[in-house]
Structure formats: C-alpha cells, structure tokens
C-alpha cells in the first residue's frame, strides 16, 4: 500500500494537478519548468522546508501551498495560494498549489457554505508570515546581521542598504536548523501593503484546464484498473426483486457483475463495455409504496399542510395572500459523479473530486469495515460541485465495487444516472400573507414553508413589520441535499418577490421602497449603487422591464438589477444584469467577477427552464436535453461593480445566486404585468392570452388538448384563406425555434397534430403569419 500510494502520488504530480501560477511571465508551463518540478517532487521530502502543514519552500525556489478545501470552480486553489504568497512575499509565478488529502489535521475540510476563505484567512496568512520570518532569520544568521536589517520581495531576502540577497530556496539549508517562529507571534501585513491580494490574479489552474492536463475525478488512470457502472432501481423507494446477468457476463471484456446495496454493478475493461454489460442485465424491480407518486401529489400534499396562517396586524389596509412554488432541482454538474478506488491489502485509496474528503474517508471506512487510518482520500479536480459533492455516495460505491472485484475501479455515473440519483434541492410551497398600512408601510410578513427535505426560513433584510415564520415538511423518500446557496435559493426568491408585490401595492418605486425599509447601511449602499450604475428610472422600450433584488449573506452584500424584454410573440430575453457586490475585502476581483457571472447564469438557467419532476414514482429528467441550461447566445451582458469596505473577506461562491431569480421575476412583472409565483418561469406564458381572446373576427386558434402531455392538435380557422397550407413555427420561451410544421388546409381550417415527445415540459409559442400580421399563441406541455 505504501508503495502504491507513493507511486500514485507521483503519477498525480506528473499528471499535472500540480500547476504554476502564471502571472509574471505569462506562460511558465514550459517543458523546462515541468522537468524541474518532476525532479523537485522526488527530492522534496529531503530538501523542502515545511514551517507548517500549509506551505513548503523548495530548493528550486518554489512555494508549494497545500489547499485543504476542494476546487469545484469557485477558485479556492488560486485564492488560498494568493493568501499565503502575499504574507510570504513570494514570487507569484513560482507558487504551486497542491490538494490536501482528507485528514483531520487540516481542520474542517467541508467545502460548503462559502466558508473556505473566512475559515482559513488568518491561518493561511499566519502560515505565510511565519515562513517569511523563518527565512529572514536564516538570512540574518548567514549574513551575521539583525533580522530587522532584512526585507523580502519576490521570493528573495535582501539586506537593507546592502547588496546581498538570497533566494528562499537558497536559504532552506540554514532555515531547517532554526526554530520555527510560532504562527501567532508573527506580524501580519497591513491591507494597504498588499501586493497580490485585492488585485486581479489569474487562475492558477487555467493552463492545465486548457491543455487538458488537469486531472478530474473521472480522469484518474492506473495500470490494471477496470471501469464500473451501476444499475439502480428507478422507483423512488423501490428495490431489486431479481436479476439475471448471464447475457451481460457473455460480453467479452465484462469482468464481473456484483450486487451492492445501491444496485447491480457491472465491471469491465473499459467504460463502453461496462455500459454494454449493464444494458444486457435483465432485472425486475419491486416498485415499493411510491409507485404512483407524482410531483402533483407532492405539491397537493404541501398545500394540504398550509393550515391557517396568523392574521396580519390590525392596521393593515391592503394585503397580499398568495403561495409561491419552488421545484426540486438536480445539480447537473458538467462531470457526472465518478470516483477511483483501490481496495488492496486491507487498505483503500481514493482519488476523487469531492466537497468533503474527510467524510469520504470515514464513510468508505465504515462501508468496507476498516479503520479510517486505512483509507486515503485524495482530492482531484471536480467538474462542478454546487453542493452535490457533499454526498460521497459515488465514492463509497467505487470502494465497495473495488473490494468485491479486487480491482482498482473507476466508477462512474452516466448523465442520466447522475440526474436520476441526485440529492435534490428540496421542493417547497411558500404560503404568504403580507400587508401595508394606509401610508404604504409594511405591517407584517407571515411566511410558512412546506417542503420535502428541510428548508429553513430566512428572515427578510427589510423592515416588513411583524414577521412570523414557520415550517413544515413531509417525506416522500426523495433524497435531498445542499444546493448552491441552500435555503436562500427559495427564501430570497420569495421574500424579494413579495417586497416587490408590496411596493406595487403601495404604489411605490421598488428601489426607493427597499431603501426606505433597509436599515443596514451596507445593504442600502449596494442597492443605491446598482440603481445609479444602471440608471434606474430611465425610460425603457415597450415590452421591456427591469427588476431589482438584494441579498445579504455569507458575510457579503449584493444587489442585482435584471433587464429583460418580452417580444410580441412572448419570447423572453435577458438583456442585461447589473450587480454591485460588497465582499468586505475582495481578495481576487477577477475571480469575484467570474463567480458573480457564473452564479447569475446558474440562477437564470434554473429559474427559467429547470425542474425535477416525478411521474409514476420515477424521476422524469435524464440530461441537458430535458433539464435545459442557458447557452452563450441566451446569456445577458454583465456590469459588475466590486466594493471594498473592510479588511476582511466574505464568502463568494454562493453570494451571486439568490437575488438574481427575484430580480428576473420582478423584471418580467415590470415588462408584462405577469407575476411569477411558480418556478420555473417556463411554466407561465408571458403573453396575456386566454381561450376567449384566441378568437378574433378573422381568426380562430385552438390547441387541443392544452395543456398536453406529448401530442397536441393545432387548429386554425380563418375567413381569409390564402393558400393550401400555412407554415407555423414553434418557439421555446427564449425564442429558440424548436419546431416547424406545415398546416394542411382541409376546407375550412388548417390542422395538424404535433408530437413533443423529445421536448422538455414548458410553455411554447405557436407563431404564424397571416395577412401580414403575426399571431402567437402559448401552449403548455405538462410533465
């Protein structure tokens, strides 16, 4: 095992999870440098200087920072390396980040709640400053001068008023002999002296990403390894009745079939054969007690649990009583879950992208019946996390399959497996009572959340009068888990939408209304700034609208303005997003920008198009084709301002999500007068058309049935027939053409039947041109 661990570590390093910051020289990833690093790895155990578990200085004058939180796209490797490099006065182009394995000596390694920077800010600064002091002490001793007469810059110690200098690498031999200054005794820099922090820095891993060298969870390779997939019961709460693997085992290259508690695992020489083997399994399932379960039933149950909400205060003159609905969501990371495990001589080694390598370690130990000290959990790049990788189910399965088969195993989910076996963002119904008094000031906000999977309530950041929150939940056996910004995703959507409803009820401007109700100065500042940057109140063209919303959390403040247009046909376009964020101290403004844009696109995609639904006890979605994500041509322009208001940084990975959804819905209201109280937005036509209005003097449109499940019949009757057929085009809510069909003239009307089998459940617009006039009618495909 020792040998294996060592070998694989070297493979890992050679295979480039080791990357170098490339700021000064632009492209340091020369062959020469790589060769140097390879040599370095072989010798470092002897030659490296390690004042703490966080940092190592090498003979070749590299600074190696150990990152004990997982990189999932939030930029933590760059950020942590920057913090150490700053206090160490390191040459940023010679800073390397490596991942810590799961081990309690690193403290809490759970990458969630946007806590990484806030948890490690002081620790990592001290680690850098401590190493710097030690190197200064070494130089002072060599030169026979006082440490006070030395200073540091770009990985060198210099003699003040002198010509002598030594690189950090050159100082190692001396430093190793000296006592390590206690971490809490070293002086930290003043923020005003920062050279690396607070300035835009490049992603330390960019070059390995764009050359394909970065080793992701599914990329780990070892001689002799096999590949495994699993067949799981498709019924929520169902189980395996029986299976026949004889055909699967006949496939050349299928190594074995194993039953584990999660399902039936097929192990093969490569991924393709594993999938082929799985296809050849013959299985019968016990559907269990949820065989009839549907999303409709779940929401009906939620509504039945609302009960009576308390009354609003007596001075309420106008009120809103309504419910908001938020669906289940899958994380749908770009890289479906996968993990490498090798159980061998009573020990197990893991290589995987995980948001929690410590629990991966303990869960694997429990599953295999070995002690934690016999499990090594190494962290690789994750092709997205968003909360999904807090659950290590895929790592545990890899470990179990390795133990049963005796092989090193790369276990992977297909995209469909991944979506159908996620830990979903909980679905919820929010029952609301909110009111204003005669002056238009809020009197009360009563909010009850009913969910499957826990959803805590969040109290509003505005003075809404008497606030009463309550929760209820009901279990249907659907697994739920954390999702980017967790309970804020639902709560801020609801609160910021209701605040908008109240402003409208009071006849007040939504921005001014918020400013008058916010007491926190920082919240007011981001709201005011975003209004100024955008030019709030300026005239917009017909069909356009703007919405505002704000969020306070993770130590940060953010306000968003979303600008949309809704065309005559009903097509929604997100034109612009303005954001002002106050992260306290912005460590890496470039990364903050990325996070704000990424979180916004995450929020837009989910708000507009995505939901996980259940029919006949099974999850219905299976991939990006029916769990749609925005594409480049659908995303807005961004204008982002980052404020600096303190010496301490906030969290950033989740901050940019919550207020985008309500700002978008508020913008749609502003544009159309249609209030979105049910997500995804795609369920609501943005055209004010109902059945009666489909009839004009010259034209009658009818879709039957509507809503429909897969097939719909379109009928158009007109007095003014021009030709024997008419072209109708069908667009999705973002105006993307999804269908084009000729309607046949049958004497009195045009008619056709369309099949929407492959399209996601959503509103679609049937658009055609008649007599130089454009007609658009919404139709709704149900789940």
């Amino acid at each position: 095992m020792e040998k294996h661990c060592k070998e694989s570590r070297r493979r890992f390093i050679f295979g480039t999870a080791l990357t170098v910051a490339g700021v000064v020289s632009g492209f340091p990833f020369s062959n020469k440098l790589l060769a140097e690093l390879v040599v370095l790895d072989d010798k470092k155990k002897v030659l490296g200087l390690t004042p703490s578990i966080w940092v190592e200085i090498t003979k070749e004058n590299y600074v190696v920072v150990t990152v004990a939180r997982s990189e999932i796209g939030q930029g933590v490797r760059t950020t942590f390396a920057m913090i150490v490099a700053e206090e160490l006065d390191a040459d940023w182009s010679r800073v390397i980040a490596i991942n810590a394995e799961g081990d309690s000596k690193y403290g809490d390694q759970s990458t969630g709640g946007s806590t990484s920077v806030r948890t490690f800010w002081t620790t990592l600064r001290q680690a850098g400053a401590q190493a710097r002091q030690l190197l200064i002490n070494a130089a002072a001793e060599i030169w026979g001068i006082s440490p006070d007469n030395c200073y540091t810059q770009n990985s060198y110690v210099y003699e003040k008023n002198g010509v002598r200098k030594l690189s950090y690498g050159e100082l190692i031999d001396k430093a190793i002999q000296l006592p390590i200054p206690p971490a809490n005794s070293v002086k930290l820099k003043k923020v005003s002296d920062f050279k690396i922090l607070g300035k835009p820095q490049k992603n330390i891993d960019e070059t390995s990403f764009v050359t394909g060298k970065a080793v992701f969870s599914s990329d780990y390779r070892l001689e002799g390894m096999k590949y495994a997939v699993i067949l799981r019961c498709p019924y929520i709460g169902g189980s395996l009745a029986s299976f026949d693997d004889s055909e699967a085992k006949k496939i050349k290259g299928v190594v074995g079939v194993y039953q584990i508690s999660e399902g039936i695992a097929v192990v093969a020489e490569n991924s393709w054969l594993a999938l082929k083997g799985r296809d050849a399994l013959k299985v019968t399932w016990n559907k269990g007690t949820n065989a009839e379960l549907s999303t409709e039933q779940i929401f009906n149950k939620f509504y039945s649990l609302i009960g009576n909400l308390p009354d609003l205060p007596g001075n309420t003159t106008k009120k809103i009583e309504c419910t908001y609905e938020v669906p289940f969501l899958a994380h749908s990371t770009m890289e479906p879950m996968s993990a490498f495990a090798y159980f061998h001589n009573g020990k197990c080694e893991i290589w995987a992208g995980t948001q929690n390598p410590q629990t991966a370690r303990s869960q694997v130990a429990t599953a295999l019946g070995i002690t934690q000290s016999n499990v090594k959990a190494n962290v690789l790049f994750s092709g997205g996390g968003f909360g999904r990788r807090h659950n290590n189910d895929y790592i545990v399965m890899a470990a179990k399959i390795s133990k049963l088969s005796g092989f090193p195993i790369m276990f992977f989910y297909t995209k469909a497996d991944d979506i159908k076996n996620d830990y979903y963002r909980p679905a919820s119904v929010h029952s609301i009572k909110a009111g204003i008094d005669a002056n238009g000031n809020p009197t009360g906000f009563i909010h009850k959340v009913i969910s499957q999977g826990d959803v805590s309530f969040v109290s509003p950041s505005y003075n809404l009068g008497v606030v009463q929150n309550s929760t209820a939940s009901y279990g249907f056996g659907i697994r739920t888990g954390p999702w980017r910004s967790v309970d804020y995703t639902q709560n801020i959507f609801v609160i910021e939408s209701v605040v908008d409803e109240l402003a409208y009820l009071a006849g007040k401007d939504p921005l001014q209304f918020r400013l008058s109700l916010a007491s926190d100065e920082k919240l007011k500042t981001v709201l005011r700034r975003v209004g100024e940057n955008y030019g709030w109140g300026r005239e917009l063209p017909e069909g356009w609208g703007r919405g505002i919303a704000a969020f306070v959390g993770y130590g940060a403040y953010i306000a968003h303005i979303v600008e949309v247009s809704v065309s005559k046909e009903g097509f929604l376009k997100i034109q612009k997003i303005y954001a002002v964020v106050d992260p306290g101290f912005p460590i890496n403004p470039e990364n903050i920008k990325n996070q704000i844009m990424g979180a916004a696109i995450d929020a837009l995609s989910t708000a507009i198009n995505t939901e996980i639904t259940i029919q006949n006890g099974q999850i219905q979605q299976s991939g990006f084709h029916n769990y749609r994500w925005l594409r480049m041509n659908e995303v807005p322009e961004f204008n982002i301002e980052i404020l600096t208001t303190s010496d301490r940084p906030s969290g950033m990975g989740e901050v940019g999500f919550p207020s985008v959804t309500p700002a978008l819905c508020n913008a749609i209201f502003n544009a159309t007068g249609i209030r979105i109280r049910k997500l995804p937005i795609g369920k609501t036509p943005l055209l004010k058309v109902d059945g009666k209005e489909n009839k004009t003097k010259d034209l009658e449109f009818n879709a039957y049935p509507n809503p429909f499940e897969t097939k719909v019949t379109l009928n158009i009757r007109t007095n003014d027939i021009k030709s024997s057929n008419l072209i109708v085009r069908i667009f999705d809510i973002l105006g993307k053409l999804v269908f084009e069909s000729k309607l046949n003239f049958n004497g009195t009307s045009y008619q056709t039947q369309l099949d929407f089998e492959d399209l996601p459940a959503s509103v679609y617009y049937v658009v055609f041109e008649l007599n130089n006039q454009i007609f658009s009618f919404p139709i709704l495909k149900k789940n």
Partner: protein
Amino acid sequence: MKIKVNKVEYNLDVESDMPLLWVLRDLLKLTGTKYGCGIGVCKVCTVLIDGVPEQSCLVPIGFVEGKEVTTIEGISQNGDHPLQKAWNELSVSQCGYCQPGQIIRAYYLISKIPKPTIEDINREMSEHICRCGTYNKIREAILLATKE
C-alpha cells in the same frame, strides 16, 4: 484497427462500434477529452475529425479509420496557442471541465473565420454547455485571441 490521433498512429484491437470518446479516454489515456452526456447534447467531448468538430461520444471508432483525429492534447501541450493564452489572460475557467471542448470548438471557428464577429462566436459556441456559466469570458477570450 489503425487510427491516428494528434499525428500519432495507434493500432487497436477493438470493436468498430466503440465510441471514439472511450477509446481516447480509456484505451489511449487521453483524458483531456471529457464525458458529459454521451448523447450529443453537451458537446464537452468535442474533437476534430479531419479538422471538423464532432462529438466523440457519438462517433464509432470504425468511422475514424484513415482520418485525422485532433484532441485537446494536440492543440498545444504548453498552452501557447493564442486561444489558450487568451483563456489564461482572462481566467476564463471556473471548474474547467467543459473548457477542452470549448477550446476545440473555438479552434475550429477561427480556422474557418480568422476574425470572428460576436455573432459568429455566439452561433458557433452556443453548441456547447458550460454549467459554470463562463460564456461571457469565453466570448471575450476568442475576441482577444483574434484581435491582432
């Protein structure tokens, strides 16, 4: 079966219907080409076949016999292609997983249109999904790489 990837010839003993994606990743250990959906939707697995982008998850290995396959490993291992430099300059990536596919597509785009407009970029690049939402930066990076 003989195939040629990044100018290197390989002799493989595989069934001709095995998708190119798994040949690259599992047999040749060229893991820069990623798996995302396996059904041609996400485009994360994009490679060039005779210079044209294809979804390697859909292409049977038999189809590439006698053709030139270029993967991300064949662009520039040092990252000094103008596109890679621009990506680095702007720190485009978040999780990074979709980026090899994005680079391959952008490489094809600029081979066809050396100075693409925003519309050209949107049209070509909208084939790809980036779950992290790096689209605006990708567009900016392609413009930067083709500015000169």
